[in-house]
């Protein structure tokens, strides 16, 4: 339905090939979270790789930062309709994490887990071949706590709630098990280009 009197925003057509449907560009970096910001010091931070319930590898902050480092400049798209262009991240690719653990993906699905109990589900295919990382730096600086620091997942081709803040584990699961927001009305996959915002989109 065309809304009476609504003509859209001037200038948005310039970005029509770059922006997924229904998104608009912001220059600030809005914060969304469901609970207080967990304050985790780098000294206390660990990252665990799990197969089902079984931990198969674990790194502390120093060990994790000794893994191969990768830079990534990407547009990010929040389900609440803001997009931020050319965001610059540094961290460790999921490929390199698996290589360091000598592990080939044993199942087709994962759950990323965070301090504070948040989780989100991701197919393995969306994490490998350079598509995703555990990011520890943003815009050349250590990642701030309100943006998920010390470390967050970065899966920039999916809506940004999939890029779980305060990440502390990646767990391979036999099935596609829904995470925190996916159990609360948000889409199980979250492709911005297909506008998969909510459960049945």
């Amino acid at each position, binding site marked *: *339905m*065309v*809304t*009476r*009197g*609504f*003509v*859209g*925003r001037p200038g*948005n*057509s310039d970005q029509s090939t770059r922006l997924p*449907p*229904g998104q*608009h560009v912001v220059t600030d970096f*809005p*914060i*969304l*979270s*469901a*609970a*207080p*910001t967990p304050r985790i010091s780098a000294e206390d931070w660990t990252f665990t790789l799990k197969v089902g319930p079984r931990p198969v590898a674990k790194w502390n902050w120093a060990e994790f930062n000794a893994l191969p480092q990768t830079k990534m400049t990407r547009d990010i798209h*929040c389900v*609440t*309709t*803001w997009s931020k262009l050319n965001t610059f991240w540094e961290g460790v690719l999921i490929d390199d994490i698996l290589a360091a653990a000598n592990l080939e993906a044993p199942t087709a699905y994962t759950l990323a887990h965070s301090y504070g109990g948040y989780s989100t589900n991701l197919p393995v295919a969306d994490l490998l071949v350079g598509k995703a990382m555990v990011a520890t730096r943003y815009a050349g600086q250590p990642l701030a706590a*309100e943006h998920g620091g010390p470390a967050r997942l970065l899966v920039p081709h999916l809506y940004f709630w999939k890029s779980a803040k305060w990440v502390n584990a990646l767990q391979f699961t036999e099935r596609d098990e829904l995470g925190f*927001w996916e*159990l*609360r*009305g948000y889409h199980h996959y979250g492709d911005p280009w297909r506008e998969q*915002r*909510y459960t*049945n*989109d």
Partner: protein
Amino acid sequence: MDWQNATITHIETLSPRVKSFFFRLPEPMSFRPGQHVLIRLTAPDGYRAQRSYSITSAPGPGKAEELELAIERFDDGEVSPFMHDAAEIDDEIEIGGPIGGHFIWSPDDPGPVLFIGGGSGVAPFMSMLRQRASIGSRAPVTLVFSARTREELLFFDELSKLAGAGDGFSLTVTLTREAGAHSFRAGRIDAAFIGGVVAAMKMPLRHVLICGSDPFVETATEGAIASGIDPALIKTERYGS
């Protein structure tokens, strides 16, 4: 997402920056207090803009045939300037939802519960408090309402009346940009202030819900934690994001 064309039946100015819009729903909606809906605007060329707004009306009894949304005008926004400047009574507006299963509280929960709202962040609490009053709940609830000025205390007359009912709801107001010319506390929310509010409440607290802008939620949450509240009790919702 289920979308429907709702009709604006009434527009009420709540403050210089906030208006309430009342919508008649062709498909009555079940929702829980604290949930939000989406407003989607479509231009003739197909360009769309969509934002979510907390529902301020109470959900029931039964399915709601009308919704109230309190919409703050953000000058660099797309949806709120349109709603404030162009939308009129009898216009049809596309509404989707309800969405959000996290920032909710229903008065069948016995409490005690602390709400902390900043500015238009009071919106979801209005739905919760209106439902609480309508079903005669006596769950202990305290609302800390922070606004910049007296005229930005949305729904203040209604909240005062609810607080005067003696049914376990109490209201505490603080104004951040207007000192002196009123009887309210002046100043931002901090740990000492929240500690004082909590000390006057029944114990133990079951939930703390905090809603407002990014910086408000950050400050209020830090204050709540510093006052001794268990972070695991706190749920947050941020506006303007």
